[in-house]
Every structure is written in C-alpha cells, then in structure tokens.
C-alpha cells in the first residue's frame, strides 16, 4: 500500500483581468478550472500541456506561491492553504520548486555557495560552521565542483545553473519537488545530463516529483503517471504505459502524433489540429477542445464531458471514448 503524498481536489485558479473599479465586465482568466489528482510517494507525476493549459499555475498554486480560487490541496493530509506562517515554513523544507528559466531563478548578486546554504542555516539544518561542508556535499551530488561555490551565477552556463538551482532545492533534503519545465531552456546534450540527474536523485533520496513539461518524450522517459491538460482541465490521466500505449482522448492522440520523430524512415499519418488554442478568458462551451477536435459533434458543444475512469486507472474526459 503506497502512501499518498499530495492530494489535489477540484482546484481552481482564476485571475481577474478587470481593470479597476470602472470596469463593467468582470472577465477572468480561468487558468486552472477544476483539477483533481493525487501523487503517491515515489511517483513521478507528469503534467503535460501546451501554453495556456494552466500546468505551471498548478505547480505554483500547490506550493502556495499564490492563492487558490477554489478547491483543496493537501500535502501529507494537511490542508496547505490553512497552514499558519510557522507551519508553512515547515512545509517549505519538505517541498521545493525547480524553475524553468535557470537564468532568472538565481539572485545575480549572491555567490552560488551562499545561495545553496542560506536556507539550510535558516531552517536549522546546518550551523554557520558546518554549512560550507554541507553545501559542498550537496553540490557534489548535483555534479558541481567545489570551487563553483565561490562564483556568481552569471559565470555559469544554463545547464550548470540548473544544477545550482537543483542543488539549492536539494539542500533542504525535501520529499517532494515541483519541476516547472526544468529542461525546456536547455540544449539536448545538456538536457540529457539533467534528466539523468533527476533519475539518480530520485533513486538515491526516494523523492517524488511533479514534473511539468510540454515535451512528451521527456515525460515518457521520466514519469510514472501522466496527466494531459488542455485549457485548465485534465483531459486524460493514466499510468505512463497506459497513456502511451493506449491513448484515448483525441487531444492526446493529436499531441502524440504531432511530435516529430527523429528518424526519416518513419512516415506516418499525422493528425493536424485545426486552428489555435482558444483564449482561457472565453473558453468554448461544453467540451473545451471541441473547436479543434476532429470528431466533435453537437453534443460536445452542449455538454461538458465527465472525467471518468475507463478502467485500468485510466481517466479521460470525452463523450466518444
């Protein structure tokens, strides 16, 4: 029996786009529009979607980097949004975040060693005396040389900076990491290094990840469970094997077929979706995907499809599955 680490229930996050007191229409961007999932200990949960799908918003909301609109987030049974400041700081040690852009997520005026060590000292995980030693340890695990500690972030390349960001997160010895597109800004050869680092850290420290990405091949390589998002909703969720071997939702199918395969011998029938992703301010009625769906009917415009279990822990939201 596995232990539930994170439980997200019907999470909603709307950003109001009203411009002050005189605006008549109160339009809001429905970034996350009712999302539920659970992450068990040891899971690598992949959250896949295109821009505007709300995947990054979920990552930041469950860490309480901003407020929710509705719903519930529980970490190890505790409601994250009802924690008082002191308890929130305790939670901060257990959960960490790795950002997409390794250039802006490091303070340019703080030396790498200090950046990694400061939170350790603040949370009492190290004293001013042994912090240096502990920092060097963590840096070594993340593939950084000891002398890197005395340098400034701008002296490093993207890949090395991402290692620093990971080391900074790992310094607190967390149980759960949210990765917000951690390899999207990196080149292929560097990307492979970082992905392998994730796998190793997970094996060694028994970590769980929420891995947010737009890249299906990376997600397939790393994740155990995957959810596909479209315009603020999860449209399909299953274990990795299920999802890739037996994709059900038309969006998942299109997404899979759109990924270019690096082999010129493979020629396949591609599903090319029509049109653009609609604005999350004014999403289509019924099924939000219907405007681009190759099999949409009138029913799809009228009724929101239910997100249901089709067996084998495979969930999807489509009338025609």
């Amino acid at each position, binding site marked *: 029996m596995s232990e539930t680490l994170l439980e997200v229930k019907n999470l909603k996050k709307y950003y109001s786009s009203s411009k002050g007191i005189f605006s008549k229409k109160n339009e809001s961007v429905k970034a996350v529009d009712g999302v539920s999932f659970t992450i068990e200990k040891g899971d690598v949960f992949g959250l896949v979607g295109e*821009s505007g799908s709300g995947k990054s918003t979920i990552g930041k909301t469950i860490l309480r980097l901003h407020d929710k609109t509705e719903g519930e987030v529980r970490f190890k049974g505790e409601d994250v949004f009802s924690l008082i400041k002191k308890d929130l700081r305790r939670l901060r040690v257990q959960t960490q975040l790795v950002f997409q852009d390794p250039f802006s997520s490091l303070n340019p005026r703080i030396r790498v060693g200090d950046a990694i060590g400061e939170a350790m000292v603040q949370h009492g995980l190290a004293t001013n005396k042994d912090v240096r030693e502990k920092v060097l340890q963590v840096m070594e695990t993340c593939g950084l040389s000891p002398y890197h500690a005395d340098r400034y972030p701008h002296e490093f390349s993207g890949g090395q900076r991402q290692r620093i960001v990971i080391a900074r997160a790992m310094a607190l010895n967390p149980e759960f990491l949210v990765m917000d597109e951690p390899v999207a800004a990196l080149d292929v050869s560097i990307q492979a290094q970082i992905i392998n680092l994730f796998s190793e850290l997970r094996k060694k420290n028994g970590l769980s990840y929420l891995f947010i990405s737009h890249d299906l091949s990376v997600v397939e390589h790393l994740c155990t469970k995957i959810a596909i998002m479209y315009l603020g909703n999860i449209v399909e969720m299953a274990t990795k094997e299920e999802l890739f071997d037996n994709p059900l939702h038309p969006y998942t199918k299109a997404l899979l077929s759109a990924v*270019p*395969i690096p082999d010129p011998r493979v020629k396949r029938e591609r599903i090319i979706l029509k049109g653009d992703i609609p604005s999350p301010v004014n999403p289509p009625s019924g099924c939000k995907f219907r405007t681009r769906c190759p099999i949409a009917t009138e029913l799809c415009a009228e009724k929101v499809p239910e997100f249901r279990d089709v067996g084998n822990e495979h969930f999807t939201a489509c009338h025609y599955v």
Partner: protein
Amino acid sequence: MLSEALLEVKNLETNFYTEEGVVKAVNNVSFSIGEQETVCIVGESGCGKSITSLSIMQLIPESGKIENGEVNFAGRNLLEMSKKEINRLRGNDIGMIFQEPMTSLNPVYTIGQQMIEPLQEHLLLSRKDAYKKAQELITLLGIPNSEKIINMYPHELSGGMLQRIMIGIAISCNPRLIIADEPTTALDVTIQAQILDILRDIKKELNTSILLITHDLGVVAEMADYVIVMYAGKIVERGPVMEMYTNPQHPYTKGLLKAKPLIGERKESLFTIAGQVPNLAELSDSCYFADRCEHRMDICLKKHPELKETSANHSVSCYLYEGEAVR
C-alpha cells in the same frame, strides 16, 4: 543531387568582437543548396547556425563582422554586392522567417501595412493590388477572415498566426530560397505541426529551396533532404538525411541522436555528452569537441580535423575517419 547549386557558401567566417575577446561564431563554413532542396543546419545554442543564416542575408548584429568567404547566390557573390543590390534580393529572391513571431513584426503597424511593403518595393504593385495580394496570401496560409486580419495589429494575433503571416511575407515575392531560422521553436507542438505542414506545401507548390535552421532532430528528420551538423562554429558532419540518421559518424552527431529521449523507447537512463560547449572566445588549436569526446586521441588535442568526404556527399570532420591517423 541536383547539379546546379542555387546557394553556395564557401569558407564563411563571421567573428564577433566582444569584451572577452574575438568570438569565432562562424568558422570556415562551406555548403551548398540545390534548386528545390531543403537543407537543415542543426546544432545546439551558440553553435553558429543562426549566425550562418544571418551572414548569408548580411543581417548580423553590429558587433559582428563577416571576415572571409563567399556567398554565391545564383552565381553572384552576395558579399561583394552593393547595399542596393542586396536590398533587391532580400525579400524578393530570398525570403526569411525568424524564431520569435511575437517580436518579429512591428507592433505599431497593421499586418496589412507590413505585408504590402515587399510587394510594393519589389513587385512594384500599386497599394490596392498589394493589399489584394496580401489578402490572398493570408487565405492561402489557412487563416480565415483575411479582410479582418489585414487590419489587425500583431499583438492581437497568436504566435502561430503571426508565424503564418511571417511566412506570407517571406513568400510574397515568389522567392527562390527561403531561410527559416528556428521557425517553430517558440510554438507549441500542435502549432509546430501546422507550420511544418505549410512549409512543405510551399516547397511543393512554389518550387523553392529551403534553408532550415533548427535544434530539433525530429524536425530535421521530417523536413530535410540534406543535413549539416554544426558545433562551436564549425561543420562537424554533413550528409544526406538518410545517411545521417542511419550511419552517423561524428561522435557529436551520434551523441545528439542518442541523448534525445524517444517516444516509445523507455530506457533506464539517457546517453549523455559530458561537459559544456566551449567558450568561443577561448578556443585552442584542438578539436573543439575533444573535451567532451569519448574517443579522444592525442592528435585531437593538437589540431582541429579537416572536413573530409567519407562517402558520396557525406563528409565528417573527425580523425576517426582519417585513414592515416593512427592512434
């Protein structure tokens, strides 16, 4: 291969003068593009692939300088042309598409105003005819409501739409060559699929050649006839697309192909190329890839290998394939 080359780049060298020193962004690069051929330059950031394409169009930033080489387009060297002559080629015989559709169009002019410019400049169309042609182009590229789109400003459209508009501008004067610099990098996968589809159609219908710059080996496999792999400003390998994927030779090419996770592959860990790309301002005499290479030999540290043909049209720059280089 087609005998007549439309574009021929010979020993191109572009340097940037920075505070840290001279950066050799494009270092002795030679290749050619035949009529109706799609050539892809692939490589990681900083390898000089974009600067190569900008050097052809002579659009490199001010701190850069084309120091050497020839760029022959339809038999004439672009680097020796006057500014006026080059302007007559740009947008007319050679169209260009850039990476960031959101910033590549002028925010204070409408789509129409920007689309008619090359039509008026090169095809000498009247304003009215140019607008008509622009509208046709928009429809051709699969955007509905062309009469509305034409009066809109760039920020009102999505990235995918804007990239179509950019393509529309590039093809408006029926160019013989289209240079596309990472045209889908900033776009989502489903939109990328649309754009690649359009590029393929254009090539078929307009009989143009395409020079496609990308870092995505998947895109290369789908689009290219001929592939050029660049590393640290130099071509390390080039060859026909089938050859490159079935029989890659340079350790870097091999590494790139293995490092990318594939859908349906599911292996335990990924192949990695250790280390980082070298600083282009501090290059030594060694093979630039030597630091990261699994097969490094003594000679690799002494001199950068020449690009040599190993089979028909397939060249590689590595001592592993030079008979005389005994370990």
